[in-house]
């Protein structure tokens, strides 16, 4: 099952009760977000709006359709901008 890691603990940890790593059944990133929202209300929304994601090492700023393999590692990091 794809594994989700909350990189920046902080405000997200508050929603997951301190957990920073968990496994989530999902085949696309979109489904993963829905599943996160179901399990930890508020988390899915935060992820969608304020975070970027690295799937198997690669950073995506917008990742709805990104496919997840059974062993994928998904790391949630703060959205990155620039100047």
């Amino acid at each position, binding site marked *: 099952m794809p594994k989700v890691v909350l990189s920046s603990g902080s405000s997200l*940890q508050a929603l997951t009760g301190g957990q920073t790593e968990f496994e989530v059944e999902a085949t696309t990133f979109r489904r993963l977000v829905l599943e996160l929202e179901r399990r930890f209300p508020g988390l899915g929304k935060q992820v969608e709006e304020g975070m970027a994601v690295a799937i198997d090492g690669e950073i995506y700023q917008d990742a709805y359709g990104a496919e997840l393999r059974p062993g994928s590692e998904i790391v949630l990091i703060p959205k990155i901008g620039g100047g």
Partner: protein
Amino acid sequence: MNYIDSGLKVVGTRPIRPDGVDKVTGRAVFAADTRVAGMLWGKILRSPHAHARIVKIDTSKAEALPGVKSVCTAADFPDIPSEEAFVGEGPMNFRDLSLNIMARGKALYEGHAVAAVAATTPAIAGEALGLIDVQYEVLPFVIDVEDAMKDGAPILHDDMFTQGADPKPTKPSNIAKVVKFKKGDANAGFKDAEVIVEGRYTTKPVHQGYIEPHACLASYNADGQVNIHASSQGHFMIRAYTAKLLGIDMASIRVNPAEIGGGFGGKTLIYLEPVAVVLSRKAGKPVKIQMTREEVFRGSGPTSGAAIEVKIGAKKDGTIVAAQQVLKFQAGAFPGSPIGPGCMCGFALYDIPNVDVLGYDVVSNRPKVAAYRAPGAPITSFAVESLLDELADKLGIDPLALREKNAAKNDTKTHYGPTHQNIGFEAVLAATRSHPHWKTPVKPGQGRGLACGFWFNIGGESTATVHVNEDGSVTVATGSPDIGGSRASMGMMVAEVLGVDISRVRTTVADTASIGFTHLTGGSRVTFATGMAATQAAEKVRDDLKKRAAQIWEIPVDAVEWKDGKAYPAGSNAGAFEPLDLEAIALKAARTGGPINAEVSVNAQGAGAGFGAHICDVSVDKETGHVTIERYTAVQDVGKAIHPSYVEGQIQGGAAQGIGWALNEEYIYNDKGQLENPGFLDYRCPVASDVPMIEAVLVEVPNPRHPFGVRGVGEVPIVPPMAAIANAIRDAAGVRMPDLPMSPPRLRAALDQAG
């Protein structure tokens, strides 16, 4: 299609940019250069207090002044609800953005806008400001980041409770947010270390320093349609935020991108446009507002000042086994400092098994920070790269060797999660080691410093259109404001794909009604993402041109090949046809299906991260504390330099800003929290006599995710300079300067103390 390995004819050359003649003759139109009939001049009244409750605003005398056509305060703006977002290039709340452009209830910094007027002349507008009577209840203020975190500090927002704090806080605080990043076990790592170094560093807030002040011309027409002509890094952003802040429908707003006189991140959000629109609506006339230089300093967003503590543990052979960092960043009056990247970028360059980073986003009574070129990274790298120099010294290892030993490579996992892919840090270090600057012994009386830097670079949404005109010339339009010469690169990539001479291609920046959505110009994204859209559009056009040739020759389309700007029959079986160039095909466009063009929108992923290494030689005048930069070399992995001159330009410009940040730039406040140096005389940016030639070394490790191998380049070069200079000063004068700027009085004091 990937062009990286094919023989490139246009990409990599140095043609003159299409907008160049306009810029050297003064013809180019920047936001403040436009005038329209009936135009009014807008001016903004700003709080003289660092922190105050706004008790009452009486605008009646101003409204009565002949020549004044409208006056506005927060009462004229919708009181929008709180909404977290990623605004411009950083986290912010839309309600905060609204309060930032026009104070509601409280003035949170000296310079905070509290009212505005529009009048027939600038002089009358200025006089009207003086007639607005604002009653303030002055409150205690706090500016320094650590002072703002202390118990008992004046609180800016009664409803701010620290996010991410555990247990959940019950008292309001100036700490908006706490963020943490962990990899491995730092405590165990430090126990394993044979050498440990620690340091505490501080930086002052600095301004992006664009020479062009913010300016816009807005007209709210009788039918509710709004036209805005503004200088910004993103006209779609202006449209979206103006719509959001004023409750106007986006389709009713059209934003024209003026030429922009510098941004560096500071123009990725709005200050003036909604105010100009409101004034225009109330007056029934177009309104122009331009900030004065003083207003730019008092009222627009600089980057954070910060306090950073770093600890690094290593083995005697230089292998880093543990690293820890605590960062406290000023956010200004509203939350949203670049604390995230600040926590991520310092150690991103190195392969460290155990890392622990803690970051605080702290509000205080100064302008809301805005993005500034690789936001957060220069600050964190100043600390980390200075401490690595100390570590190298303690270990007796050459500082470059220390970087080489610990350099991140492909498949190195960062401490914030993602794994580096397709990066060029090792190539950068190798190029540094073999560079004549590194190989030349340091001159007597001088010192040398080395520092490295990293930035993620982003991709995102961009739209480009490519049209073949009836005469076979090509027009390229994109939605990306050109802040550094990107128009040239867009045209070059299209010319390359189509196989035509660059002189046949014109590039323009289209307004919000004329092209598809494009994310703003920042994050080192335009050559990457907009270039990707332009390349794909050119490919579609090339395919269309082949189809038209096939029709003209009445042969199957796969019997046509495209080479050097012409359609050829593929092989003698296809037919003995004379090749057709763009002009020949365009002549028959109507008969073969109509106009030849393509528009492509992308949400570009796969932006390649950038790495840089800077070598700096300085001499220190021990009597005055003045530092002279004697020689400067900036090595950077640029992916593929589409137009090498503009890539070099980005590197040189970023390095120069870093030099200013290192040696002189800072905000100086008096005891009332008011800015004492809101001008270029005393806010001292580098001038031509302050810097030598800056050698930019372009290392090209192509990014395989872009058809031309492009990697963003604009932000990395501002990351290494501060530590490179601090390390050079240490080498030259024997003193470690942990506090920025390393200005003459500070260096003198440090030299005196060292004895």
